[in-house]
């Protein structure tokens, strides 16, 4: 079993004619993902990597029976592309695009609440169910299938932790990169809830970082609702207060919440072991299984 993605996932790629869209469509298909269509305004009738392109998501979804979208549309147009995907409607939308204006995402988020669609991202590496399908830009070769669920705010950190897990023979059910932007679709709690309900997932790794209060909220959820064991990791222990570490919305407010210490202690209080290094995280998972 897996969450969000399985062998029935039929994908339309929005922005398939762009450089990244084309490259990663090929990578996704090589991995086994069922990419059935592309959608780019004005490019209907073309083909990319053997996949038919449609002018609208609606046409692509109807013609090819698609139920998921991966969005590689540039930031200025990505908000509109997300509305289009949510309106199709689809079960799952994965937004890879980085740098979408926050007010655009606020409107998308409002629309999202009126739908049954799962939105993952934006500014995320995507979702992968090893051996079945990947929707996004994750390097498939480092993943292996198994019974560890993974949810992370950071793309490259996801890869690092997966590498450490795979090295120890700890395969994954599904890995979800939720993205580090201020406003995202699927958050830690949504992902943890899905993993809790998935019988194949026997442990979950949650990778957070400084900024915001999502990890603290996840800790409250874990403490009150989860039987599946969770192992945590928090990036940014050495970040100085008040400095913005990258585009990830990782800023420590100085008001006590949002710091690495606050997140680590919230998780530890909820019974979640927190690794000091990605290597230690894998060690904790091994101990729990």
């Amino acid at each position, binding site marked *: 079993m897996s969450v969000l993605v399985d062998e029935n996932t039929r994908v339309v790629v929005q922005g398939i004619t762009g450089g*990244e869209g084309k490259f*990663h469509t090929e990578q996704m298909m090589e991995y086994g993902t069922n990419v059935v269509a592309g959608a780019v305004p004005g490019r209907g009738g073309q083909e990319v990597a053997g996949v038919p392109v449609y002018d609208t998501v609606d046409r692509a979804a109807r013609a090819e029976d698609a139920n998921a979208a991966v969005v590689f549309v540039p*930031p*200025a147009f990505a908000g509109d592309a997300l509305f289009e995907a949510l309106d199709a409607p689809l079960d799952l939308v994965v937004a890879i695009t*980085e*740098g*979408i*204006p*926050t*007010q655009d*995402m*606020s*409107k998308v*988020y*409002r*629309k999202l609440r009126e739908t049954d669609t799962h939105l993952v991202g934006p500014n995320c*590496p995507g979702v992968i169910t090893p051996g079945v399908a990947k929707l996004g*830009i994750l*390097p498939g070769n*480092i993943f292996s299938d198994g019974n560890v669920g993974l949810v*992370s*705010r*950071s*793309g*490259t*950190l*996801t*890869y*690092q932790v997966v*590498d450490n897990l795979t090295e120890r023979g700890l395969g994954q059910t599904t890995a979800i990169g939720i993205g*580090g932007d201020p*406003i995202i679709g699927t958050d830690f709690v949504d992902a943890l809830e899905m993993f809790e309900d998935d019988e194949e997932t026997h442990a979950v790794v949650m*990778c957070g*970082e*400084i900024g*915001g*209060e*999502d990890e603290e*909220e996840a800790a409250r959820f874990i403490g009150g609702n989860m039987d599946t064991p969770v192992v945590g*990791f928090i*990036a*940014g*222990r*050495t*970040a*100085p207060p008040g*400095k*913005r*570490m*990258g*585009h*990830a*919305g*990782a800023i420590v407010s100085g*008001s*006590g919440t949002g710091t690495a210490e606050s997140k680590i202690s919230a998780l530890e209080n909820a019974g979640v072991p927190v690794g*000091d*290094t*990605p*290597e230690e995280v894998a060690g904790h998972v091994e101990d729990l299984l």
Partner: protein
Amino acid sequence: MKLHEYQAKEAFADAGIPTPASRLAGTVDEAVAAAEDIGYPVAIKAQVQVGGRGKAGGIELADDEGEARDAAESILGMDLKGYHVDRVLVEEAVDFVNELYVGVTMDRGEGRPVAMVSTRGGVNIEEVAAEDPDAIAREHIDPAFGMHPYQARKAVYDAGVDREVAGDVASVLTTLYDLWAAKDGSDAEINPLMVTADGDVIAADAVMNIDDDALFRHPDLAEMQDEAAEDDLEAKANEYGFDYVRLDGNVGIIGNGAGLVMTTLDLVDHYGGSPANFLDIGGGAKAERVTNALDMVFSDENVDAVVFNIFGGITRGDEVARGINEALEAFDEIPKRVVVRLAGTNAEEGMEILNTDLVTVEATLEAAVQRAVEYAEEDSQ
């Protein structure tokens, strides 16, 4: 991007929010002339983007020409919390009976905007929020509809604003929200919004931060970006388009993705070293970006060794390796030892390309960080 107070005030005034008469001045003589025109008393305010200017001596009142000259002389050229003051705003001093706070920001937890009003204006509002959250009335806004007038009235009455000025304050708040929405603001604040004895409301300060990701929609605002006040290296990083933060250690760090770079910093600390910087080259980096990144880190004289940590997804290892070679081959003698760890997309191709005469290669993150910490220790002695 932060606007200066004078830029934000101009935007507020254009939108119809009452502001005091004011003029920008770059010299003492200009400041005095502006004060004479506006009429005493005036406030002379340093135009630097830091909070707490008043306490730090960056704001002074002047009742006559002599005081205006003294104030301008002491503020212009001063170093305020690390920022050089080269401009002051000379402003009509408003006689007030009350100081309010109004603000609009994005509530990231809720995913929607929130408008705030408090009668505890004129002080550090974060402190008020921390010790007495109920002192701030909050109203969440549906971004699809914008702020309805009734919502502004509700916030203003909830905050306990005097009935005589409630209508005007509500009107300032809806205008502020509309401006925030139109300009892709991240925060917009007036603290204090002064209430005069005659019952007028006037924005005595103005804060407006714009979402950097939305600047493409606002070329007029993007032009206002003021890089002069930044650290030299941080200004260089801006030019290259890197996310960069200078720290006080001696291990230079370059990586891709904020989370992984932060983790690399944490590991340097974990293994007894001290990070010199945070540098995220971002996703999909090509060779030239890698060359620029090394140039940045080598320009920091505190750096004794560099760790280059790339886990490719959208970034490809062969591109990165090519960039590292190009950057290092340009030197007769490479200024600092560089440790490289490449994994993920096209990492194998990258390892084949990488010129190992120029760098030390390590297979794992832990090994790479430990090696860089060792090098930094050796080279700092």
